[in-house]
């Protein structure tokens, strides 16, 4: 795949940062929906739901810091570790707080 024509790094970063924010809605939705299915009676669906949450958290942990959202990146990383280790106590609240943090970025108060 060929790359976009070169532009100044700052301009490119601004555009990518805007894209990242545009995509946050979808990411929030995916995490919310998957998190609801984590206790599904069908173990395969429950397992896949946790996997989707982990994938989303991992991606956000990897890219948020690169666009200047270090706090979101660090929070995503901590949550990813907690979910991976099965540290479920208080995880609902932490996930909700994290999703709120993302929503705040979309619509700054």
């Amino acid at each position, binding site marked *: 795949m060929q790359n976009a024509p070169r532009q100044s*790094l700052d301009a490119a*970063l601004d555009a990518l940062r805007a*894209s990242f924010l545009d995509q946050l809605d979808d990411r929030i939705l995916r995490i919310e929906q998957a998190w609801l299915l984590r206790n599904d009676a069908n173990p395969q669906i429950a397992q896949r739901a946790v996997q989707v949450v982990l994938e989303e958290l991992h991606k956000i942990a990897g890219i948020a810091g*690169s666009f200047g959202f270090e706090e979101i990146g660090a929070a995503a990383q901590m949550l990813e570790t907690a979910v991976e280790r099965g540290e479920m106590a208080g995880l609902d609240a932490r996930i909700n707080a994290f999703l709120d943090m993302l929503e705040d970025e979309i619509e700054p108060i």
Partner: protein
Amino acid sequence: MRILAVDDEPIFLDLLTSQLEELGYFKQEVAHSGPQALDMIRDAAAPYECFLFDVQMVPMDGIRLVRNVRQIPQHLTTPILMISALQDKDSIDRAFLAGANDYITKPLDSIELKIRLAMAQSVLTERAQARLLQNRLVEQEQTRVASLRFDDPSLIDDVDCVIALSSMENFLLKQGLLRLRQCCAIGFHVQSAETHFQSLGPVYYMDLMADLATMISTSMQNFPHLMTYLGSGDLVAVLLDRPHADTDQIRNELDVRLDTLSARYAGVGTALPSVGIGEPMRVGLSPFECPTRLLERARLAARQSVHAGRPRARIAVA
């Protein structure tokens, strides 16, 4: 440096490509999955020179991708840099075991990226220089062998115990007469060597001599020895601390090995020549005789040996 970056997060790839361009790397392409990357590597008109792989991807993670790429002969040593979040240390270890060379952490830091890519570039440059040097050495060696004349002595490479004629002469000159008297030299003459030289040309002829030298040397594996090629199809082995040698035993051992070698040569349509074995020679009693004369006497003894048409080792009849 042609780079292939692979990540299943499109926005990260966009960020990465922007930073690569900023650092002056414009020959870059991206893939969104391991399978797509493998297709692109397979179909690439010019091979990629550096890979950047995310570790955690679906359906094929970065570690499996590294394993797959390392199975492609062209990319056995191509620098592979993993891109990973800091908490993926275990994955990084596994990626290194699979054949990755380095890693960059997320979030992406342009200074870190610059340093890691510069390291990859320097590895590539060093390898290119080493290849160039190796090619020159090979060319020089080919030129040397290609210009060889039939009666020139020549070093036979890659055969244990075989040394250059000049080294053998030095060795003999540096031994005291007493120690030399404890040695003997056995000559081996390759029959119809000149015919083989003419038909095979110098390069393949020396390959033939190397094969025969290997067989002769292994036939004498019970005797510590040094051997040299004197030119004109003549080899001489100096047996260390052995004033006598059972040439019957050497002949029998050599016959078995020549039979095996003969079958291999027949497979490529070449008849293996016979090898004459001379009687063991010892240094003369006169203290005025140059020790290197021993080689010449062993050579003459081998040439007096009786040859048959079959590729057998024959002992000179006294």
